[in-house]
């Protein structure tokens, strides 16, 4: 018998190896757990440097021991296959577990255990943790900007109306389905614009007029993103088709447009739209700053959309064009019924990417004096009464943005599933 038998892990001594290995891993993880959560050190009797590395070494030995091929134990096999395939993977597994244990207590105590949310002045925040009071007090500002408090119902109603109209497609009968594309591309944006203009901006029907400079917070994020999204998509589609057109004039205009807008930074475009653009306009011609910003972002993102859609168009085999042509379809019929439905289905992930980037680019409108969610944060953190709470604000904004973006990407997965037909 080999004298190292007890260290050789195979099926013959599985019982012994399994018990030893599990014991060692448990010790190593327990040590880190106690250390980070209860500030206990099980192995404090060892010199500090050794004690620092011990859990890792013990854990590695344990994981090494239980790495038995075809052990017959289902759970063990899954474990070995997924996180314990080699020493390198075992080390990564251990380090990640340790890292999570180390990170939980401080963040937990800062965000929840030591945090304050009661009261409505800065003085209420006494603990060492986060001051959620700050978010609570400023919540309406973060949502609605400088819009007067008693008028907030107007924003809410407008949003509900726009969302309600957006779900129209779900209830459309077979007969109305034909016009859905027309509805979403042309009619819906116009109605949405009118609703938002008359209800939020006001000035008619006895509603108080509120200038766009007062709009802000999350509602402004939504307004800007919404209009940019629904306008930049058709624009991108036209540009993508234009770039592949046989007519040289159309093609070169499209290429020029796309390359121009992709070549300039968004922040410059925004500056130009608000500072330089009015200089070229006739004196009596007035265009609201918010409208100019929305147009600028739309034109900018349209170029990106165009390239994404063009990628989809190029991935279609030539046979699809041939087949459509051989059936007597002209350019528009061919594209509307055969080419675009397939190409757009292929570019859903890319389009979603562009749209997410767009939503996260909206904070840049702060440079022209429009304060959406992140802009309101920047204003709030410089308020003399509430200095020193930037961290809470940014975490709050991060959570909100994450929820929006995650919802969007989930929706895009759903669309992918919905339109999946085997090729």
């Amino acid at each position, binding site marked *: 018998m080999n004298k190292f038998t007890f260290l050789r892990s195979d099926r013959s001594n599985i019982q012994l190896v399994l018990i030893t290995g599990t014991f060692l891993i448990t010790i190593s993880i327990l040590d880190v757990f106690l250390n980070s959560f209860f500030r206990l050190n099980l192995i404090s009797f060892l010199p500090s440097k050794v004690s620092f590395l011990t859990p890792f070494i013990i854990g590695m030995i344990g994981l090494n021991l239980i790495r038995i091929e075809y052990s017959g134990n289902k759970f063990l096999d899954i474990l070995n296959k997924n996180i314990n395939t080699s020493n390198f993977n075992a080390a990564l597994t251990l380090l990640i577990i340790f890292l999570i244990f180390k990170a939980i207590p401080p963040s937990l105590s800062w965000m929840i255990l030591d945090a304050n949310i009661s009261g409505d002045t800065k003085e209420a925040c006494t603990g060492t943790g986060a001051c959620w009071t700050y978010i609570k007090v400023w919540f309406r500002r973060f949502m609605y900007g400088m819009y007067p408090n008693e008028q907030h119902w107007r924003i809410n109603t407008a949003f509900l109306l726009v969302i309600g109209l957006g779900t129209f497609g779900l209830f459309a009968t077979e007969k109305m389905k034909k016009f859905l594309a027309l509805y979403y591309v042309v009619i819906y944006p116009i109605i949405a614009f009118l609703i938002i203009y008359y209800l939020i901006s006001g000035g008619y029907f006895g509603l108080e007029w509120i200038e766009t400079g007062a709009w802000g917070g999350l509602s402004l994020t939504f307004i800007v993103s919404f209009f940019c999204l629904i306008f930049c998509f058709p624009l991108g589609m036209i540009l993508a088709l234009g770039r592949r057109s046989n007519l040289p004039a159309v093609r070169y205009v499209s290429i020029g447009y796309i390359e121009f807008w992709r070549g300039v930074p968004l922040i410059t475009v925004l500056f130009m739209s608000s500072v330089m653009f009015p200089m070229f306009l006739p004196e009596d011609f007035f265009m609201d700053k918010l409208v100019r910003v929305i147009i600028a972002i739309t034109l900018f993102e349209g170029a990106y959309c165009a390239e994404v859609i063009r990628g989809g168009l190029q991935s279609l*085999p030539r*046979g*699809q064009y041939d*087949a459509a*042509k051989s*059936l*007597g379809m002209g350019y528009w*019929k061919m594209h509307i019924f055969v080419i675009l439905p397939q190409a757009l289905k292929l570019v859903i992930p890319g389009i979603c990417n562009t749209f997410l980037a767009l939503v996260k680019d909206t904070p840049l409108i702060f440079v022209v004096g429009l304060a959406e969610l992140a802009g309101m944060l920047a204003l709030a953190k410089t308020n003399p009464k509430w200095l020193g709470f930037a961290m809470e604000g940014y975490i709050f904004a991060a959570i909100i943005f994450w929820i929006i973006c995650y919802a969007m990407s989930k929706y895009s997965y759903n669309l992918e599933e919905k339109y999946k*037909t085997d*090729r």
Partner: protein
Amino acid sequence: MSEAIIKIQNMNKWFGDFQVLKDINLEVEKNKKIVVCGPSGSGKSTLIRCINRLEEHQKGSIVVDGTELSENTKNIEQIRAEVGMVFQQFNLFPHLSILDNCTLAPIWVRKMPKKQAQELAMQELEKVQISDQAQKFPGQLSGGQQQRCAIARALCMEPKIMLFDEPTSALDPEMIKEVLDAMVNLAKGGMTMIVVTHEMGFAKEVADEVIFMDEGMIVEKAETKEFFANPKSDRTKLFLSQIL
């Protein structure tokens, strides 16, 4: 003799500097079935793709159903609607069901009411024996079924001429027969057909004339029996000895 429905005179075509078709002269009468054969790269496919102007020719003239094809042809879509085509790679529309594949063009090009188009499509699918697959998507069908669906799709436009571009070349051997059967039935129905194929059995059975092409030229054109019994040129003899 009836009137020629396709008339090709001195037609030449280049891809860049490479001349694919050289001085093609061809007349096809109504209800005639022509089989085009020849080695790969001889320009067979390009020839029939020129007939519905999926490829443009540079010299000579092509007259289809009384209309000359040229850059100035405004109603190219109308001509294509009269000329059905079946491709080697089927080219069904993968995002539409079999039935929708068949009704798309009749509804939007022929302006046929939806219901009528569906009835017509079911009739045509019945003829190629896949009416039970009408609700499926192309990706769920076998190659032979897809190709038969492609034939039905072209027939739904009620074309005057049918072009077949190697319809059986991408199929498994056991599926070739079902597609050929559908084509034989179509031929017996009196359709004008031009078929590019290597299936010499099919040629013997239905073709009125066989054309042999090599290096962009029509080397030999003869009645079917004559073509197989005494081919005139050496190149044809060599080809036939290899393929039969």
